[in-house]
């Protein structure tokens, strides 16, 4: 990790050894640019980069590419998410070139939630390549300056390559190897699924460190502050791959309804504190779902402000 | 025992209700029967092995077809009784006739040969 691969702010922050703090923003269900700009304003200056989700949970929204471009105009750095569900290799490569041309320097490579979860379950999915192959493709385009077919790219896109990791999905014993494979494929940084089960994550990170994976890649721990016990319950039951311990739901239920949001934030802050000290964790990815306006307060109380200028 | 049962019932004998076919039931309805029922041995007491249970599944299957066709599924029934229950036989016959009477004549028009 001597030279910069992409020159993105996120890359520089991580390379300089700072504890990274990234945010997330879902594009609007429509072309409501003003609303998007409002949400982005909350995040500006409080995070190192903002993930722009790509038809998250398979619900149609403004394209993550357009959302990312708008974000650049608003003065924040996007982490452009791309799923393999909606594009074949042609569209993938052309969108990567387009993204780079618009100034996007970070990409998160994902398989994508299955369309049956979304609002167009009748859709045909693509899955021409999978997330592992997408990571390798972005790397090939960047490092070799070649398309998938080996043809030269006239000005290759230099992306800082991200990948996801869900330590809470099954089979658990395999997850660290899958992570290793993604790093091998070319992932520069990892953003994990929302973490709630700290015991399991501690165990997972121990495995990661034992394998030395944290030295090859920056790992950002995913945190989602719970707004209330109902949200915890819902996510536990209906969001695939979520591991929400009963103790957390109990803790939220244990306080007055009006205080549950504060309790959720407190838990998230405790997590951030622990991640700051946890070996192998290079930062936090704060996914305040439809709660972007709380990010300044959360960042402030987490003691991650001001964000480093690199 | 000189038990009487409704004259409307036409009996077709089979060695075991396992011999009853979906088509026997369907064809009866097709030919204008207002109802058709299978009288098998008590469950668990099939003289062969499970003929009456097979018949039960076939009756259920035919009920589904009738439902799909907008015909009352109650026009087809499965009953279970032992050969020693003559009184019960007459009772079932009366019960079935009563059920069918309540439903009225079959919507499958008679005399319109295929």
């Amino acid at each position: 990790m001597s030279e910069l691969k992409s020159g993105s702010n996120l890359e520089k922050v991580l390379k300089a050894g700072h504890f990274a703090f990234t945010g997330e923003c879902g594009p609007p269900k429509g072309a409501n640019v003003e609303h998007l700009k409002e949400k982005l304003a909350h995040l500006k200056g409080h995070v190192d980069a903002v993930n722009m989700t790509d038809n998250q949970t398979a619900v149609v929204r403004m394209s993550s590419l357009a959302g990312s471009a708008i974000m650049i105009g608003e003065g924040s750095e996007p982490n452009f998410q791309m799923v393999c569900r909606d594009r074949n290799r042609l569209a993938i490569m052309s969108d990567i070139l387009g993204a780079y041309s618009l100034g996007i320097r970070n990409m998160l490579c994902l398989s994508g939630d299955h369309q049956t979860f979304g609002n167009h379950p009748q859709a045909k999915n693509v899955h021409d390549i999978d997330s592992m192959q997408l990571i390798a493709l972005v790397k090939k385009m960047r490092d070799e300056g070649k398309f998938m077919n080996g043809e030269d790219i006239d000005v290759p896109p230099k992306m800082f390559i991200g990948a996801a990791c869900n330590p809470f999905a099954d089979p658990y014993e395999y997850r660290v190897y899958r992570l290793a494979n993604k790093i091998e494929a070319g992932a520069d940084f990892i953003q994990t699924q929302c973490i709630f089960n700290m015991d399991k994550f501690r165990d997972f990170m121990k495995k990661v460190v034992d394998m030395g994976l944290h030295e090859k890649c920056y790992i950002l721990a995913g945190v989602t502050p719970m707004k209330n016990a109902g949200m915890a319950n819902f996510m536990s039951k209906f969001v695939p791959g979520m591991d929400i311990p009963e103790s957390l739901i109990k803790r939220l239920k244990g306080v007055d309804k009006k205080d549950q949001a504060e309790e959720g934030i407190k838990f998230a802050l405790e997590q951030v504190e622990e991640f700051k000290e946890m070996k192998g964790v290079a930062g936090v990815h704060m996914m305040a779902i439809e709660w972007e306006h709380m990010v300044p307060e959360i960042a402030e109380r987490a003691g991650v402000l001001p964000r480093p200028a690199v | 025992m000189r038990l009487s049962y409704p004259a409307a019932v036409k009996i077709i004998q089979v060695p075991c209700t396992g011999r009853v076919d979906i088509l026997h039931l369907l064809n009866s309805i097709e030919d204008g029967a207002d109802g058709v029922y299978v009288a098998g041995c008590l469950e668990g007491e099939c003289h062969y092995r499970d003929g009456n249970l097979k018949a039960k599944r076939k009756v259920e299957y035919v009920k589904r077809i009738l439902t799909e066709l907008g015909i009352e599924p109650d026009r087809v029934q499965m009953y279970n009784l032992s050969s020693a229950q003559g009184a019960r036989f007459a009772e079932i016959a009366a019960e079935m006739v009563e059920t069918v009477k309540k439903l009225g004549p079959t919507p499958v028009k008679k005399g319109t040969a295929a």
Partner: protein
Amino acid sequence: MIVADRKSLEEILAMVENNKKILILGCKGCVTVCNVGGLKEVEILASSIRIARKKSGKDIDIDINVLERQCDREYVAGIKDTVGDYEAVISLACGVGPQFLSEMYTDQTFYPGVNTTFFGGATEHGVWEERCAGCGTCAIHLFGGLCPVARCAKSLLHGPCGGSSDGRCEVNKDTECIWDTIVRKKMEQGRLEDLMGVRGPKDWQTARDGGPRRSIREELIQGNI
């Protein structure tokens, strides 16, 4: 084999709504084995349609027949003398049948009576499951003999996605996560390294993406060997 499901009576009745004389044609191949288009099913469908039509007061004359296979021209030719006697024909074969019929008898209307679903087998009596996607480039030996192209909802080639839970697929809890099974098998065998590394992108030209496919065997074109 090819697995299919019978279309609803409602759909079939609507197809032949205006016909007074039809043929229902079964097939002794796959659809007989998966109990959807053999003699039995042909008879049941014929009776069901007759009941429905008598109910609506619009009689219908139905003949039935079952071909050895509807995917072979020599068997399809077997009805050449009678096929013209009907206003329409319902085929209970897989999607191949009504097409071979339509190609040979261009003036006749052939309705599909079944929905062809997948290549698979019966895992228990009355339950069929998909096993093959017919992608044209079989590589199941790389995955412990199990096919992620057909059996993973996302056709992933590099392990289970983040939605795998307790060996079940995120799309449907009744569906096995095939990647969970593949991974566990490899771990038990101590051969997890088989799943590491990045496979080259799959060549989908041999799948449907390359357009309709053809299989040509020169030696057979010249005659039986």
